[in-house]
């Protein structure tokens, strides 16, 4: 008897991007590139350069509707409510520069347009699991962090990578809470940063990444809880000191350094066994490493004494 077994990477037909959207997007991108060259002031409205979808990373779930992803956001600089998308539009996205500094051979400062032009852009459909037990599936556009690291050449003494978010008090009301340890910083080990899944995101749904989702540049490691992903990055620093991140300073017991997704380890105030999909509201089982164990489990084989799951 022929038995059809569903693989985790099987995609439902409904999640495929319509052909018209794909080809239309390329035309829009070409137009956007022309506009970009013509006028830097128009760059904020310009599209992304073309980026092919990398089919190596299959989410196994339907892509979340763009509207859900762009209107339900965690970005504490704008408040702790989910409805910060309108307020985030006030953040100036151009000009934008990102420093890569610290323990590297060649420290660099990139304009975002420079990054878009020189990095190998691709689209990856990743799952994102929030520590608050909701989840989404997003077609991100970006480039592997390893490509950026290859340009700056980490010193052999570097062990960690620290990501720092912009602080713009004039548009970020959350910064009024002066007691929080701003700027928002997150970090990971250099080994984690060099993993093929570690992705610097500059776009979503074929468009430039909107500010509420961390535009113009954010980080994403899909096997970790979402708070590990620094948004609207201005500095990437390599160091030999393990960083203490923003949330770790506030509630280390709830938001630790490693924060790998694990359904068997509950948050102190709720279970992590299930996750609610944005948009559909469907409750689905959470997977170890958010389903990316085959790519990352090896990173942690000698770290069993660490608190890897929170």
């Amino acid at each position: 008897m022929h038995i059809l077994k569903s693989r985790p990477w099987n995609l439902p037909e409904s999640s495929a991007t319509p052909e018209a959207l794909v080809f239309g997007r390329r035309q829009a991108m070409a137009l956007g590139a022309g506009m970009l060259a013509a006028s830097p002031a128009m760059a904020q409205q310009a599209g992304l350069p073309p980026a092919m979808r990398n089919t190596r990373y299959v989410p196994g779930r339907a892509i979340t509707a763009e509207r859900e992803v762009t209107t339900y956001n965690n970005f504490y600089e704008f408040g702790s409510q989910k409805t910060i998308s309108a307020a985030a539009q006030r953040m100036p996205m151009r000009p934008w520069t990102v420093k890569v500094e610290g323990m590297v051979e060649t420290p660099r400062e990139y304009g975002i347009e420079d990054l878009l032009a020189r990095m190998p852009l691709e689209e990856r459909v990743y799952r994102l699991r929030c520590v608050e037990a909701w989840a989404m599936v997003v077609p991100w556009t970006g480039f592997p962090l390893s490509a950026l690291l290859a340009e700056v050449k980490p010193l052999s003494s570097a062990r960690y990578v620290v990501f720092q978010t912009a602080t713009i008090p004039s548009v970020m009301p959350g910064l009024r809470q002066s007691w929080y340890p701003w700027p928002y910083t997150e970090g990971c080990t250099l080994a984690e940063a060099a993993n093929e899944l570690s992705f610097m995101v500059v776009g979503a749904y074929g468009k430039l990444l909107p500010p509420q989702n961390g535009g113009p540049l954010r980080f994403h490691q899909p096997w970790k809880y979402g708070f590990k992903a620094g948004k609207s990055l201005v500095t990437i620093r390599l160091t030999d000191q393990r960083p203490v991140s923003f949330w770790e300073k506030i509630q280390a017991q709830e938001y630790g350094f490693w924060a790998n997704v694990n359904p068997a380890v509950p948050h102190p105030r709720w279970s992590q066994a299930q996750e609610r999909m944005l948009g559909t509201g469907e409750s689905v089982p959470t997977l170890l490493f958010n389903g990316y164990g085959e790519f990352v489990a090896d990173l942690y084989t000698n770290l069993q004494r660490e608190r890897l799951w929170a």
Partner: protein
Amino acid sequence: MRLIGLALLALAVGLFAVFGGDPLGAVLFRLDPGLLNLVQAVVQRYLLPMIWDDLLLPVLEAPAWVVPAILGGAMTLFGWMRARG
């Protein structure tokens, strides 16, 4: 009431002596780093963001001694006026 008012004034003096002009939010954060985050999340997500932004935040941004000083002063005055008939 006058007694409570005087106690609050004493608390204000104590807070000023220990924390100087530090905002109430910073003092609470020092005592319990997770407390305000929880309160903020509950207020902004389940009540109204503006309750936090426009009502609580100004109080939290003020020096820690201000709230007990105002409350203590008002209660002391009110108690004294009531005692005088």
